[in-house]
């Protein structure tokens, strides 16, 4: 049992409407984001996925007077849009409409939120899609996304953070329409709602919105506290063996006690950007694993959850969390089966690149912990971030989203506060933070790989066997001496592996 706190519950305070406003007089659209402070963390045990179902039933269903199909007809000429998103601790609904259509769209929006129809037919459709996602889609469509969800399942085992927001194969089967209605009444209430609004709207409109939303349930929701997890003891690996995987997709993590609420977060952000800025070629991990050695498509690190990393280039808003973890993402590397087929000179290899890539990545983290960042690297990275973070909020929806997330962390305007924090940081602050929060001896690791690769990889990891890099002759021929020397050091870099388990793909997320 890694969780320390399961029984602690947080109760929302009684009704006091929270509002985050972003007035944009030149904009021709209105964006409304309604944030409820309850996410998958408040799913009942045995019915994991219920918050997600409830949110989907609101956006994929009708209102008191209109069916889902009626709504689609009405909003079609407006090109108005809305969606729901559920994360561990919050759920939100976002509505966007051109100001020309606001009066016609508004009643639909309010109807969806305050008077959802929750019809049985809509429920059948929503739950079938959700079941399909947890049974099939997550395992079959992207091994990278799979490895991330599997890591959260591992790292947060036996806590309210463990399950995917969409739930588990068995738990989704238990969800009923009655559960949805009750969950909506108990948890999507006016007492845990924050209203976000952006665009060119009038004070009267906002007043009306506030009034209408006060019709939501008056229940004071009880939401479990986010888990505080212990540091894993040693390195623990779960290899998920899948038929026909083309490579090994790797994701690692260990708990991190800081979030955006803490001042140390900015320091760690500089270190993380230097180590592995998402989808950038500046990071050490990327340069070492992809650029110099061409082992995969990219390698990055994280100090908070980054939603849909495979699709997003910039970190999206709407996923604020209290339980953070440090993570390294190694995109799929080659497996032995593929190397053998493609290169005559590698016909005798028994194991692909996963073990070596893992060693290379953790060795980079280790070096950073030991040596810290140079003054020069610190300055360059800070300069980059001070400009780059402005892109996070380049459109109104994300600007509003970041403001709403700021509130979650007890801040007013995270991006502008972050800029000030970055401005006053020193290299010393960053290096202190690295030493304080990062290490390489304890972590959980998930690897999605082919069944043929699982056994040899497990053995290699468990026994800490040397994992010499197996280059094709193409690449090997031109590699400089210092790279080969570094490879030699890396192949036997000791990982503090304690446990290695092979799990069949079908047995995950049960």
């Amino acid at each position, binding site marked *: 049992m890694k969780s320390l706190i399961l029984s602690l519950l947080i109760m929302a305070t009684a009704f006091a409407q929270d509002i985050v406003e972003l007035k944009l007089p030149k904009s021709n659209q209105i964006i409304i984001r309604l944030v409820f402070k309850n996410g998958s963390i408040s799913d009942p045990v045995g019915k994991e996925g219920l918050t997600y179902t409830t949110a989907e039933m609101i956006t994929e269903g009708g209102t008191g007077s209109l069916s889902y199909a009626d709504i689609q007809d009405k909003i079609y000429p407006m090109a108005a849009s809305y969606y729901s998103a559920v994360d561990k601790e919050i759920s939100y609904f976002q509505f966007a409409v051109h100001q*020309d259509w606001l009066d016609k769209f508004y009643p639909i929006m309010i109807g969806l939120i305050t008077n959802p129809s929750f019809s049985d037919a809509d429920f059948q459709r929503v739950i079938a899609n959700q079941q399909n996602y947890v049974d099939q889609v997550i395992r079959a469509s992207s091994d990278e996304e799979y490895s991330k969800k599997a890591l959260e399942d591992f790292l947060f085992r036996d806590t309210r953070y463990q399950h995917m927001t969409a739930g588990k194969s068995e738990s989704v089967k238990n969800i009923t329409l009655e559960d949805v209605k009750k969950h909506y009444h108990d948890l999507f209430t006016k007492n845990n709602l924050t209203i976000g609004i952006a665009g060119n709207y009038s004070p009267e409109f906002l007043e009306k919105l506030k009034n209408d939303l006060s019709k939501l349930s008056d229940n004071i929701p009880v939401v479990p506290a986010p888990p505080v997890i212990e540091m894993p003891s040693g390195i623990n690996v779960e290899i998920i063996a899948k038929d026909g995987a083309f490579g090994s997709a790797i994701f690692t993590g260990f708990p991190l006690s800081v979030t955006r609420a803490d001042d140390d977060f900015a320091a760690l952000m500089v270190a993380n950007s230097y180590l592995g800025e998402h989808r950038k070629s500046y990071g050490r991990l990327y340069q070492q694993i992809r650029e110099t050695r061409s082992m995969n498509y990219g390698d990055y690190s994280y100090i908070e959850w980054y939603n849909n990393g495979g699709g997003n280039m910039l970190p999206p808003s709407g996923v604020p969390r209290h339980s953070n973890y440090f993570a390294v993402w190694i995109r799929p590397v080659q497996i032995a089966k593929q190397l053998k087929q493609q290169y005559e000179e590698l016909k005798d290899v028994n194991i692909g690149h996963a073990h070596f890539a893992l060693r290379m990545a953790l060795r980079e983290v280790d070096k950073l912990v030991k040596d810290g960042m140079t003054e020069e690297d610190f300055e360059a990275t800070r300069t980059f971030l001070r400009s780059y973070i402005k892109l996070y909020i380049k459109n109104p929806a994300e600007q509003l989203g970041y403001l709403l997330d700021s509130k979650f962390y007890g801040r007013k305007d995270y991006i502008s506060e972050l800029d000030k924090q970055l401005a006053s940081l020193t290299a010393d602050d960053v290096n202190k933070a690295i030493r304080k929060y990062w290490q390489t001896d304890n972590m959980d690791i998930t690897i999605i790989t082919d069944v043929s690769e699982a056994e040899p990889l497990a053995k290699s990891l468990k026994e800490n066997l040397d994992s010499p890099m197996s280059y094709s002759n193409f690449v090997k021929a031109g590699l400089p001496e210092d790279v080969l020397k570094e490879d030699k050091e890396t192949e036997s870099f000791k990982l503090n592996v304690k446990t290695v388990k092979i799990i069949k793909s079908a047995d995950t997320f049960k």
Partner: protein
Amino acid sequence: MKYLYIIPFLLFFGITVFGQDKGDDKILPYPIYQHKLDNSLNVVTIPYDSPGLAAFYIVVRVGSRNEVEEGVTGFAHFFEHMMFRGTDKYPRDKYNDILKAVGAGANANTSLDRTIYHMTGNAEKLETMFEIEADRFMNLHYTEHDFKTEAGAVKGEYTKNYASPYEQISEELVNTAFDKHTYKHTTMGFFKDIVDMPNQFEYSKKFFERFYRPEYSTIIVVGDVKPDNVNKLAETYFGKWGKGNYDPQIPVEPEQKETRYTHLQNSSIPPYLSLNYKGPAFSDKTIDMPALDILSTILFSQNSELFKKLVIDEQKARYIGGGAEDSRDPYLISIETSLYKPEDMQYVKDEIVKAIENVKNNGVDKKILEDTKSYLKYSYAMRTVDPDVIANSVAHYVYLTGDPESLNRLYSMYGKITVDDIIKVAKKYFIPEHLTVATISPAAEGGIK
């Protein structure tokens, strides 16, 4: 409800974004400034209210369509990777350092007809952006070792993508639907060619000589910038870029004579069905593409009769969607659907075909036609909320026709499409002989008629 109506009421009877100037119904409510350099490089500037922010795009009209030679499919995409390997003046590391100092979000991507390089960041650093981009577009220099190393990253990208059965079937689909045209291979290329990429160092230099030329390229700058300044920077940094003389002969696809099929046996995902009819090349001068856009929105969007029947009421399909891909040469009009049960595949296919036949015979409702025009216009307005999105949408039309004004022309064409036009294109393009059916199911064969 009394408060609510104040603002919308004024707007409803006042101005709308599309009707500000009578006679000027351009979808993009900002002027497009164009300036052509002597070497044929087109420079497009769109000033936009995004204080301190500018999007800098370079569109090269080379994609997998241009890969006419045997054994080098996937090269346009591979070359996009090579463009990040540096020059003598700014080797890779230095280029990265400068880019990092600009604090921009920068990347590139390749598809059928084009490669796009983009960076969005601090508008004050525009000159640096021009300088480093001009340097690599004119003076790219990499070693054979760099070249071979990068080939591994491309294989890594393929490995990542190939995990998805949808990716696997789309590869098979184009290979089945096309015989001669280069659209037969995906932008990633045939896997055997990807494995062989390290051997193509000499060819890569030829590729650069051929396509990385001003006549193939357009610069697009959107945001907190002035056209005069952008043009001056373009002259300064790209003025000496020499013109090339290569004109690839893209094979013409012969007419398809019968329905084709491709199938992937896979039980790990829900059954999947796609119908792919040969469509037209993009043009903003004929009604074909705009009419097809409207028709496919009517037939396959979330409020379509088909969606209501198959997805909402009968719950036979989990999803349905479709449309004609914009491309320089005739490509595909694709309708995709994901099902609950494999045994419903034939039924779902028949229902889709029935809906298409219904349009051929009876046309479409006039109100739905007008609603669809409204939908397309408002969708565009709702999307264009930052300089990056605007640059991207303009880049789309630049690669299709070479002219950013195509965007405005296309949307103005939408406004003129009639019910007869819709019937005409339905009859012209939705022909069984021009159809390729792609399926994924647990069965060994697709089994669709």
